[in-house]
């Protein structure tokens, strides 16, 4: 109670202020102002081409922005900085890709343990044991020695989540993690994400899985044409969307 307002525990995990991005004359993100609190699960949804993926990719600077700022732990990610500092920031933001992007030349356990060893300097045997524990957690302990090409899409995505978790990031970003999967594999990936959320992980997730959004999200950001036009808790968003564009989006989903 006596903590000052600027203490790191009270700062939002991620804060986007006035973020704009355009390709030439074409704006993709317009004045995005939003924040994610510690431990909060935010689901970003919206029609395709609305800028959801671009938005989430700007948060670990896989995409540059034209103006505005994105702070993570009080640091502006888009400030000019030496690449070392940027790499350090990125290592603390977990990112899960739509296409998994596992390293096909490494075994599953090496995929998970390599970055802690190479980036953070963790001792190889420590990283290896930790990788096995993480694989156990995503239900793939028996696949540790397999190579990515031998796994199903759902298994690959779970390995990708374990790989991101191995860096012990305080925040996890998911860019349509189930969009490249066969329908029967979506559930296993969502289950892993649900358990992460239940453990209090701060998560930002672009997804079309409205069931997941309803069950797990603390807040929904609805984005259209590069603007966040509605943010609301899931009950409000799904039952009483205020914005006509959001109403239409939800109506389309029901068909």
């Amino acid at each position, binding site marked *: 109670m006596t903590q000052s307002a600027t203490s790191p525990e009270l700062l939002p995990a991620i804060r986007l202020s006035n973020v704009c991005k355009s390709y030439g004359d074409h704006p993709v993100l317009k004045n995005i102002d939003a924040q994610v609190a510690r431990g909060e699960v935010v689901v970003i949804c919206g029609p395709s081409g609305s800028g959801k993926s671009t938005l989430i990719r700007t948060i*670990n600077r*896989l995409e540059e922005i034209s103006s505005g700022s994105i702070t993570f732990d009080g640091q502006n990610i888009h400030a000019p900085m030496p*690449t*070392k500092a940027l*790499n*350090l920031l*990125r*290592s*603390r*933001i977990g*990112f899960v*890709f739509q*296409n*998994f*992007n*596992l*390293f*096909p*030349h490494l*075994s599953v356990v090496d995929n998970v343990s*390599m*970055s802690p060893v*190479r*980036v*953070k300097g963790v001792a190889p045997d420590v990283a290896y044991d930790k990788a096995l524990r993480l694989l156990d957690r995503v239900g793939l302990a028996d696949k540790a*020695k*397999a*190579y*990515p*090409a*031998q*796994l199903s*899409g759902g298994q*690959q995505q779970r390995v990708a989540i374990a*790989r*991101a978790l191995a*860096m012990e990031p305080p925040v996890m970003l998911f860019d349509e993690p189930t969009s490249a999967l066969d329908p029967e594999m979506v559930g296993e990936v969502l289950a892993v994400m649900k358990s992460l959320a239940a453990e209090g992980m701060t998560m930002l997730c672009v997804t079309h899985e409205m069931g997941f959004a309803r069950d797990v999200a603390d807040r929904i950001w609805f984005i259209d044409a590069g603007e966040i036009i509605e943010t609301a808790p899931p009950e409000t968003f799904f039952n009483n969307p205020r914005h006509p564009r959001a109403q239409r989006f939800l109506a389309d989903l029901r068909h």
Partner: protein
Amino acid sequence: MINDMIAIISDHWLLLLIGQYPNGPLGGLANTLILSALSIALAFPVSILFALARLSKWRMLRWPVTALVYITRGVPLLMLILWSYFLVPLLTGADVPSFVTMLTTLVVYQGAFLSEVVRGGIVALGHGQMEAAKALGHSYLGAMRFIILPQALYNMIPSIISTFVSTIKDTTLGYVINVPDLTFAANQVNNQLLTQPFQVFLILAIVYYAICWSLTQVANIIERRITRRRAGETRGPAVPAEPRPIALEQP
């Protein structure tokens, strides 16, 4: 004719093997192997550096190397050899041994060719791998070393080996600047015998063929071993999750 060839070998095997050594410079097959091995061992890392420079975002690095690669690839090797043989001593006043001239020229020439193979392998991997590495906090060079190059080079093994083979064959051009290699020795033998050029040069062809064939075999074994390791212990053929990028094959 086979008898003639056996006779030539039994009379001149030492010359073909080591040239005039120890009374003169090391030559013959030994020198050919040394020149080939050094050229390959140096051209390979040079080609990776060239490829990285050509993919660099820094113009200061990208432009000169791009120019070098274009020029080198657009000029016959023989001309390049003659240039460095006559021009370098003229410009520097230094007396460069022909072996060194040949080695340097081969390294630059084959390094340029090989760099295009390496670059093709890197580009064919697509952005996903580099993005995943960056998102995990890897530096650019770290990602190249541990994630991009191991895959790119593996995918390019056939093209890389064919460049190595042509490097070995190109060492024969050292003949024109008096590098005492196997070709040089064979020509000396031919000049002594005068009547059996077909037999002498057939021996030469067989030896070169054997060297290059062995290299190809070694490469095949390495490639199969990596493929088997990546297929892992589980049964059945591995099904690639994504279609493998099509490698830019050298003809």
